[in-house]
């Protein structure tokens, strides 16, 4: 009887000790789960096959952040269109942007392509720089460290486990980084076209040169005038391929391909972006193997 009572008293406590962490995108969920292991559960808010800029702030997501003990976001204004109303509605002080259980990953990464002038006539630009930084595998390692420190800071009790999980991940990931750089070695200097510059960090990591985007300006849908310019550019510069995201229609890319014969390569940006991308390793395996 006494045992049962003790069990009943401690059961809720162990449940409380189990951290429920809401994260904005699948890649953050995977990293957090890897480091946190069985001591945390993650709730991913955005779906991996959708445009990360345009997530509908559906009420079910309010419930998700309402019940979270911590929130980890990408930052760099990638979530500006959907996360603020969720945080505002959920009224959960634990996920307030000034609390110690809130983590903005972009604050720990040096963002590239920061615009000198911020003006909407230049399209839907990100004033803090390009926020798609997780597509450089080196940054993934950095972020894993940031998440380890974050989990440790909010749950010091399991510090050793987080350190151990991080250590194992880092060893595995470093080997993978080497493997991927071998795979991409002969792609150095390759010219590519994109729909939107969401592979900026990937291109930088492997020295691919982005020479143009199908959208005339960030966030502005393709125009016939700009499409003709891109066709001309492809004819003159002879880029290797079009690297295309999974969420925009490939219609314009196919039209361009029809006129120039250029290849279209579908590049997943996150876990679940394509059906076979189930984890971070699969994501980079795919990305580094796609350009043939």
């Amino acid at each position: 009887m006494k045992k049962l009572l003790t069990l009943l008293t401690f059961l809720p406590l162990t449940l409380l000790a189990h951290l429920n962490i809401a994260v904005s995108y699948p890649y953050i969920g995977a990293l957090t789960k890897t480091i946190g292991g069985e001591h945390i559960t993650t709730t991913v808010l955005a779906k991996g096959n959708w445009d990360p800029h345009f997530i509908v702030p559906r009420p079910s997501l309010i419930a998700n952040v309402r019940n979270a003990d911590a929130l980890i976001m990408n930052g760099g204004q990638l979530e500006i269109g959907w996360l603020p109303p969720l945080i505002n509605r959920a009224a959960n002080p634990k996920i307030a942007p000034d609390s110690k259980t809130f983590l903005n990953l972009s604050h720990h990464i040096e963002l590239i392509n920061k615009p000198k002038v911020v003006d909407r006539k230049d399209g839907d630009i990100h004033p803090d720089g390009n926020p798609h930084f997780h597509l450089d595998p080196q940054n993934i390692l950095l972020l894993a460290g940031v998440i380890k420190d974050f989990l440790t800071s909010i749950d010091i009790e399991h510090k050793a486990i987080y350190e151990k999980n991080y250590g194992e991940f880092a060893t595995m990931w470093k080997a993978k980084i080497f493997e991927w750089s071998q795979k991409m070695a002969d792609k150095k200097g390759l010219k590519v076209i994109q729909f939107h510059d969401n592979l900026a960090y990937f291109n930088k990591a492997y020295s691919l040169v982005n020479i143009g985007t199908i959208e005339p300006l960030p966030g502005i849908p393709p125009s016939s005038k700009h499409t003709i310019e891109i066709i001309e550019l492809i004819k003159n510069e002879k880029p290797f391929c079009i690297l295309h995201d999974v969420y925009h229609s490939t219609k314009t890319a196919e039209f361009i391909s029809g006129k120039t014969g250029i290849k279209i390569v579908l590049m997943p940006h996150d876990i679940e972006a394509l059906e076979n991308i189930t984890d971070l390793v699969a994501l980079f395996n795919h990305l580094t193997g796609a350009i043939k």
Partner: protein
Amino acid sequence: MKKTLLSSVVCAALVYGADVLPMEKRTFDQSKFIPDISLIMDASFVDRSIKDDEVAHLEVPGVAHGLLGSHSHGDDNHATYNAQNGFNLNYAELVLSSSVDPFFTMDGIFHFSENGVEIEELFFTSNALGYGTRLKGGKFNSNFGYLNEQHHHVWDFADMPLVYDAFLGMHGINEIGAQLQWTAPTPFYLMAGLEVLQGENEQSFGHETIGDVEDPIAEGDDGVSLYVGYVKASHDIGDTTLLGGISYAQGESRIDHGADEENPHAFSGDAKLWGADFVVLYQLSSYSSIKWQSEYLQRELDGIQYNLDATGAVLSSPTMFKEQSGLYSQLVYTHDKNWRMGARYDTILQNDVKNNSIMVEQPNGLDRYTAMVEYHTSEFARFRLQYSRDNAMFNEDGQREKLDTIILQANISIGAHAAHSF
């Protein structure tokens, strides 16, 4: 001498001006604390089948009048959105919002129009209470129903649904008061809210004295007079989001039409309003969706109607009981980032008016059909073409006036504007 002095002052100013310190080096600079500022303009070109002077006198019989056009109340000119044929500048909406301190935020929404400035909303919100509770105080749009909390520039059509406009007027329940909302710790979305409001709605709620203070027609009641409560729940099935809610508002009612040229009258009594809303959003892709949105509203007014003469003297004061309901249902298809289109059906379902317990016959078929197509050059600029056929409007002789309206609306925004909630 004077000239030299003046020019040296100018020179000194120029030299000093050229040496302005960069922002980060100004010791007492506070410009980093500037709140988010945005400005939204709404302008339209309107073509109605009825002249402006006549449109202002149309009414939904037994329900409401003065819903369209512009009206003069003494020196005060009051215009509805898209009031006149030709060009209309509906408003410039200035939005300021920022954190105040770690405990709450403040938002101010101001409508500038050619008739003056209105504080549309001005409120503080606290999310620091914990347990999923959120407290709001100030002037704000009530969270009654689905559409009521949204600003005009978020609406899918250029005008309000008929039942909202008729029961609550063009601003909906927009009141001074306090709001407490609680989001339940459930795996699905469940929210309950309670609002205590002053109660100053032109169509349904009010508590002010009507008539002369010395010898009032209907005596006012000081203080808070309107209470609103609601429960909302949402669930996702794959890429489909379902959101439903029920709302209730109860308060005192004072409707003063004593200054009207034709049939001046006033009403004093109690008002109750029930609402049910249901939204289904089916997301086809990141940029494409189908949204079906419907709301049902039911109103009960119970009190005394004072029929007045031109001097404001009471001619008769029968008891008045109104039980009325209506709904709108709209379907909006978002094709891509550029194109959206939609259709809406409006109707008044029930219109029971009892004057001294005797039913007053009201016409049937009070409905409206609307269609629109939108082109967005970006998230910040929207152009909308809307056509509507309104069968609910009657002239002062009690004749139905079929009203066709074409509205070409431009809604443009600049600055830092917070993302909208679902």
